């Protein structure tokens, strides 16, 4: 993790226009755009693991508009699931018929989007904390749910986001059972949660966890709770689909 002084030298989230060259710096990650022709640009990215990605981008105009924004933590090391498993570093105890509202740090990734007219197209993504981007299983090996796993700490409020690495998420836990309960983890599909950014900080839509009785079984019902904020909403990375068909042979 870099300190505050270092973080001030990193590129902020937001919109950028590439006329000739543009260099974006993120923690242990370097991104470069360069003009290589009248309507063509090159893209270069080297991440914290030393992996290099190079692309050529034919442009429809003389300049290229891009957006750097936080995205859901689902792509590193490979996209395998839409679920997230957050393990709290401290368990939360809830008395019977009570509710609590907490803020937690939730890992994020960073998306690089091309702007064409009003549309955002997914160009690339990076993670600034690859060693903590891992999978976990909720349930048994044969029927369980594969999730992105993260051990998370409590945050003080929405401004407590760790730039480029973790956003802040509000979790409302409601215990409707007639006994005290301890909550140590939460598993939910994060694909319904949007992200919002300001400068280099980010927040995510929250979740509402309701502990209740269904027939004779105690269950935790998890619903998305849209956050009310004036921060800029991130484009959705997953909306774009990759083309899997291939037609070759013309020479």
């Amino acid at each position, binding site marked *: 993790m870099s300190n505050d002084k270092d973080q001030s030298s990193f590129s902020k989230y937001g919109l950028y226009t590439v006329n000739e060259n543009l260099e974006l710096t993120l923690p242990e990650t370097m991104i470069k755009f360069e003009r290589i022709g009248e309507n063509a640009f090159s893209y270069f990215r080297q991440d914290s693991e030393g992996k290099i990605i190079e692309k050529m981008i034919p442009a429809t105009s003389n300049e290229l508009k891009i957006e750097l924004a936080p995205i859901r933590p689902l792509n*590193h090391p490979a996209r395998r699931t839409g679920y997230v498993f957050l393990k709290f570093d401290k368990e939360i105890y809830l008395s019977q018929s009570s509710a609590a509202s907490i803020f937690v740090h939730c890992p994020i990734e960073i998306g690089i989007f091309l702007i064409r007219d009003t549309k955002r197209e997914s160009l690339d993504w990076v993670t600034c904390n*690859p060693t903590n981007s891992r999978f976990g299983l909720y349930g048994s090996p044969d*029927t369980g749910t*594969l999730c992105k796993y993260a051990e998370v700490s409590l945050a003080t409020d929405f401004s407590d986001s760790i730039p480029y690495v973790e956003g802040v998420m509000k979790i409302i836990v409601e215990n409707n059972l007639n006994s005290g309960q301890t909550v140590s983890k939460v598993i939910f599909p994060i694909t319904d949660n949007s992200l919002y950014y300001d400068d280099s900080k980010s927040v995510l839509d929250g979740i509402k966890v309701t502990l209740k009785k269904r027939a004779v079984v105690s269950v935790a019902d998890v619903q998305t709770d849209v956050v009310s904020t004036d921060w800029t909403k991130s484009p959705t990375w997953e909306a774009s689909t990759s083309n899997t068909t291939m037609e070759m042979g013309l020479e």
Partner: protein
Amino acid sequence: MSPIEFLQGLSEMEIIGGLTVLSLLLGGIIMAAGIIVAKITKILFFKYYAPTLPQDTAKNFGKIIYFGIIAISFFIFSSSQGFDFSGLLVAGGIFAVVIGFATQSVVSNLISGIFLMIEKPAKHGDTIQIPDMGISGSLLDIGTFSSRIRKFDGTVIRIPNEKFFTSNIRSLTASTVRRAEAMVGIAYKDDIENAISVIKNEIKLSMPFVLRIPEPEFRVEELGDSSVNIQVLVWHPRDDWSQAQPILLTVIKRALDKSGIEIPFPQRVVWDAKD
């Protein structure tokens, strides 16, 4: 000559046993129409219904529809001509016994294929292993008489359904996650807890596809002749075997090398009686 007179002429031209040129022509038209209807139905089935079905099932349903319509066309043709097949029954019965003996493996494969389609031990695209035959690969399809598997070396192997049905089939993609295993021996002088700790840290750091939950497991499997043997078990997403099993030993060795923990060669201490 008018067309009616022409058709009348054809109906009077007998070929054999009451079979006229006209009836043969009519039969040809019925069969041709049947084949065209069968083909159109098959195309429509594959366009509108097959995408909602598993690939194997769609393929086999397509065949049943196609040959079913042709068979119905043949029965329409034969009944329109008043063919009497009762004479064939006795001869057919004897013939069927002869054919039955000659084609029992074919029938066995067909029946096994039907049972495989009902039981569905694996579906198209599943990675499976047939330990009895030493075959591993991706299941391409379960056909009427045989099944095809694309092996990991890129070749395709055809297995008769009878053998496939009676073999043990291990599905490698039925579960959400899979486990990779490795065995490593450390010297008796080294601390077991320390060795486990350094291996665990290296796996955590350099194997992104290894699951954090369930955690990697370590078992002291054996106090061997030359080393303390530790079994390392890690879980990974089912499709990422290549990111776990083939590199697990490399990561373990690197962790032990970094910490100066010895992986001993097989050794034997020989005591001289005079000593």
